[in-house]
């Protein structure tokens, strides 16, 4: 066994690398193979940088929820309420900002303020995180059950806040929503010969910031390493002197808070409130995490992997759509296929590594 430390070449690297880094490498390689494949075989839009930036623009909120999800999953839990929270947040913000839609006489003079909307978003997320975290960590109820209840509650509340979908016309907000951050050097020239700047939305910057902060948290902060320890083996973590309950609580709290933030980013992207917003987002977040190398059993995962997981998921959707298979079920089927392939690759590789080590 000790030989693996000295073995050079691929098999030595393979045996030495931690599970987390191994799965991360696979994810990144697969993403690039897929994207370059799309550039080569489908060409067209995939050659333009803006296509890639649009993938980011459309999935800012998903990146944030998926990061939170990865964190909870690394800690050995799961949170399926995030989609519901996103819907509730965007509906609440929409209703707050557009109070004059509901009650024109009273609020026409005083439009809602954006930072208050942001506080509402974070507050809702935090509330979900705290309650769910408390139930999971201190009352030791299964996280699946707790967050399932949370999901139904959030969806129900969304409809109570407002029943019908509507677009927000608050001026300050519309301005914010349409803000484009120009990415220099990536623009392209259209058919008429006019140069068009490439841009990303503010939400994307927020999402990337979240990725960086969480990456640092998981890598360098003691709490972050605690998530890995608890997810790897909670009993051992306890014996090693980690506060297991508090760690679990904080994982749910952060995930809830991020769901609130994601709700606001989602709201900035769509600019409307609707009870059917973000339906199935929790499942996409889980799928992205898994594709990104986070294991459902806990203790293994990486935020950068999750980012690439989201990008892979979105890219495959784009490939399917641009291949002319626009119907919704095709996307579903490809995602299902992709998940299967990734799970098989992961378990095969981990098993192979075990075999190599016990040899």
């Amino acid at each position, binding site marked *: 066994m000790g030989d693996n430390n000295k073995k050079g070449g691929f098999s030595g690297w393979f045996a030495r690398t931690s599970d987390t880094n191994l799965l991360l490498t696979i994810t990144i390689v697969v993403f690039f193979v897929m994207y370059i494949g799309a550039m080569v075989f489908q060409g067209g839009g995939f050659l333009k940088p803006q296509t890639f930036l649009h993938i980011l623009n459309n999935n800012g909120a998903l990146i944030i929820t998926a990061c939170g999800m990865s964190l909870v999953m690394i800690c050995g839990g799961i949170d399926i309420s995030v989609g519901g929270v996103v819907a509730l947040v965007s509906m609440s913000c929409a209703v707050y900002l557009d109070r004059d839609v509901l009650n024109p006489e009273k609020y026409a003079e005083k439009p809602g303020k954006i930072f208050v909307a942001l506080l509402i978003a974070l507050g809702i997320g935090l509330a979900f995180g705290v309650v769910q975290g408390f139930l999971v960590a201190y009352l030791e109820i299964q996280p699946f059950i707790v967050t399932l209840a949370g999901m139904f509650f959030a969806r129900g509340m969304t409809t109570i806040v407002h029943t019908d979908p509507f677009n927000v016309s608050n001026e300050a907000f519309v301005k914010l929503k349409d803000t484009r951050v120009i990415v220099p050097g990536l623009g392209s020239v259209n058919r008429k010969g006019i140069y068009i700047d490439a841009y990303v939305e503010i939400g994307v910057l927020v999402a990337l910031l979240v990725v960086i902060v969480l990456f640092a948290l998981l*890598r360098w902060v003691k709490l972050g390493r605690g998530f890995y320890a608890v997810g790897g083996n909670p009993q051992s973590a306890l014996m090693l002197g980690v506060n297991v309950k508090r760690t679990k609580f904080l994982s749910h709290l952060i995930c809830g808070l991020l769901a609130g933030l994601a709700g606001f980013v989602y709201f900035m992207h769509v600019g409307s409130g609707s009870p059917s917003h973000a339906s199935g987002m929790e499942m996409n977040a889980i799928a992205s995490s898994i594709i990104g190398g986070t294991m459902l059993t806990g203790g293994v995962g990486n935020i950068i992997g999750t980012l690439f997981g989201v990008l892979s998921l979105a890219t495959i959707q784009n490939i399917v759509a641009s291949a002319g298979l626009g119907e919704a079920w095709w996307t579903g089927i490809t995602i299902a296929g992709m998940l299967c392939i990734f799970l098989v690759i992961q378990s095969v590789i981990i098993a192979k590594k075990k075999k190599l080590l016990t040899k």
Partner: protein
Amino acid sequence: MKEKAVLELHGIVKSFPGVRALQSVDFTLREGEIHALMGENGAGKSTLIKVITGVYEKDGGEILLKGIDGPASIHSPQDAQNSGISTVYQEITLCPNLSVAENMFIGRTKGLATNWRKMNQDADKILKSLDIPAKATQQLGTCSLAVQQMVAIARAVDMECKVLILDEPTSSLDDSEVKKLFGLMRDLKAKGVGIIFVTHFLDQVYEVCDRITVLRDGKLVGEYEIKDLPRVQLVSKMLGKELDDLSDIKGEPKEEEENANEVPVLEAHQLQSNAGIKPFDFYIKKGEVNGFTGLLGSGRSECVRAIFGADHVIGGSVKKNGKDVKIRKPLDAMKNGIAYLPEDRKIDGIVGDLSVRENIILAAQVLRGFFRPFSKAKTYEIADEYIKLLNIKTASADTPIKSLSGGNQQKVILARWLLMHPEYLILDEPTRGIDVGTKVEIQKLVLKLAGEGMSVTFISSETDEMLRTCSRLVVMRDRKVVGELKGDELSQSNIMKTIAGHEEEKGGESVE
């Protein structure tokens, strides 16, 4: 607190539902001593340790620590670590998904952030000084069990501690690693650290320890200087029998018909399972009652589990009536007419929510195949027959088994296997936790079955029970068969001597 004591326990009480695991235990650990905590499995050693380290909340009593006025309040492993108690647990309690260095430092560094470079350097230094063949950055799960155990020890030793607890740390280590550990323990002892050492290897106790505390059934038996307590005495203390009154209680001698040509009902050759027992030979003849004896945890149950295929068999062969048979899983054994009453009836025996009747017919039904069910009337007939035969006290055949008393549950499981009409019946601790009357009934039944030609292996923690029923005893120590006693050799004192290993003859025998 007494002079020089670093840790004192007074009247520690701990109960679990239905069990009093610790009953008013006192314990004193002095500065700079290695103190062995001895007792059979289930005597309360691990519970006591988990109370000290705050994994379990004690129900009563107090813990005194040097340098702290009044009773120490230890409610979690963190509290224990902070008060200078570091521990290596019996099971490896590290996180396999983290790196070696992280496992050594997590939960005990100050500050908010992790300084990887410093942590890896420190870890490498410790690994090097202890000669552990691992890298600081390596994922722990990729190391062998022995290395993982050494990492756990390195972690515990590196902490500035007053009390070091080692709970069976040597079970996965080889001789040279054990030597290294002992050297380390002596160094720490010289520095004034008090060490609690739990092990089931008697040789190791006599090699490094200064004093011994013996526990039995959750009670304190006594505290002894090592030189005042020879091995045989120690074993007798652990088993709870004074050597003096070990007059042989054996009844009428059972005649052993020495018939060399008779083919054994079952013969195992160099059988080995993944449960960690050394390969062993075994045979049993028709109508014979034999038994495995040894301290709890010496591998008695693992032997019979290997025969029954309940653990994964990794080597050796089994002959049934002279013919080779392959037993890979319990069903194979059942098809060959072997029945096994497991040691832990709650886990391996009863199906709690099913009725007495369903529990009785379970094994027979499995053998018959699920597509040919017994008729309901037939199952009632069978159930009623056995309830009467074994005198099972139950409201009706339809009562869920979990509402019966322990002894009656045991009888139901016994009925299940008797219904199979096995040629060879293995009874692993059939009399544990049941009242005296039922014990005698079961012993009588065993002898009656043997008289009818059934071969029975009988395992019990109570040696006199074994002496009463068995005509041949296989003695085990440290997961290895160390002797066989039959005929006139069967006596309490002989069994104990064999378990302890004859000191006068021993000398050269190596540490297992």
